[in-house]
């Protein structure tokens, strides 16, 4: 399947949705909704609510993440927002501020 990459000089203000992986190296403001993986590269800046299967953040995210599978915050990333996902990995060096909810789908 084609690889979608939003290059580093691109600024999108709006909504992105789709059924494939998405790599963001530029700036996206708005809303992102994918059935597969979202990768926010080191240069990426996302100010949006994110709803996907997996998310990998190496850049900057301001917004809430709702992932059906897993969220990974890599070192040097900066995230402000709530994360809701069954699996979460926050690497040493990552900067995160927000709530984490891993009880997705499991009643309490």
């Amino acid at each position, binding site marked *: 399947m*084609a690889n979608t*990459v939003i*290059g580093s000089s691109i600024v*999108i*203000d*709006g909504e992105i949705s789709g059924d494939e992986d998405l790599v963001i190296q530029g700036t996206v403001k708005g809303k992102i909704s994918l059935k597969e993986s979202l990768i926010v590269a080191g240069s990426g800046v996302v100010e949006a609510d994110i709803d996907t299967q997996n998310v990998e953040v190496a850049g900057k995210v301001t917004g809430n993440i709702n992932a059906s599978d897993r969220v990974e915050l890599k070192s040097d990333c900066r995230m402000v927002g709530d994360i809701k996902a069954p699996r979460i990995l926050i690497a040493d060096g990552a900067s995160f501020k927000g709530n984490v909810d891993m009880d997705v789908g499991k009643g309490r």
Partner: protein
Amino acid sequence: MAIQSREGAGVATEIGESILISGSLEGDEDLTVRGRVEGNVRLTRTLIVEASGVVKADVAVKDAVISGVVVGNVTATDSVQITADGRMVGDIAAPRVIIVDGASFRGRVDMGDVDAARHDGAGAKSLPRPAGKASSSAARSTQLARSSARESGRPASPPRPPAGSSAPLPPLMAGAKKRVILKKGKR
């Protein structure tokens, strides 16, 4: 297309087939659309709409190569090309426009000043809109009576401001100004 990007490398951006972007998109790199973009696109480089791509937006770019569907106006500082698979509805404003055989297009094309006829020194007139031009011979004779009343002498420069130019447009269409000047025919 494998994209490894180093930051600021101005690498081309690709929008995959299943992606829909709705909003405004701007950037300083080439953009290849295989999916769907709606809204507004502004690039300082090239927009490529692949055969599967659909762009329903107003577009302002340097170049555009359209092999998919574009609905909206396209303004380019360099060129617009509609390839054989391309389909576009909208207006094009660019100094170079290429429409390849097989392409479909409906809209206006403005390349700036076009000097299509320079004769008669009889001033210029804006383009009459094509309203049922198939039978313009009848219209022509009535226009003849009407237009001679309208255009006594030389009409002023045309009211059309295309690309900020001021050269008068050529006199259009015989019907518009049928001053019967019986020129001495050079046979």
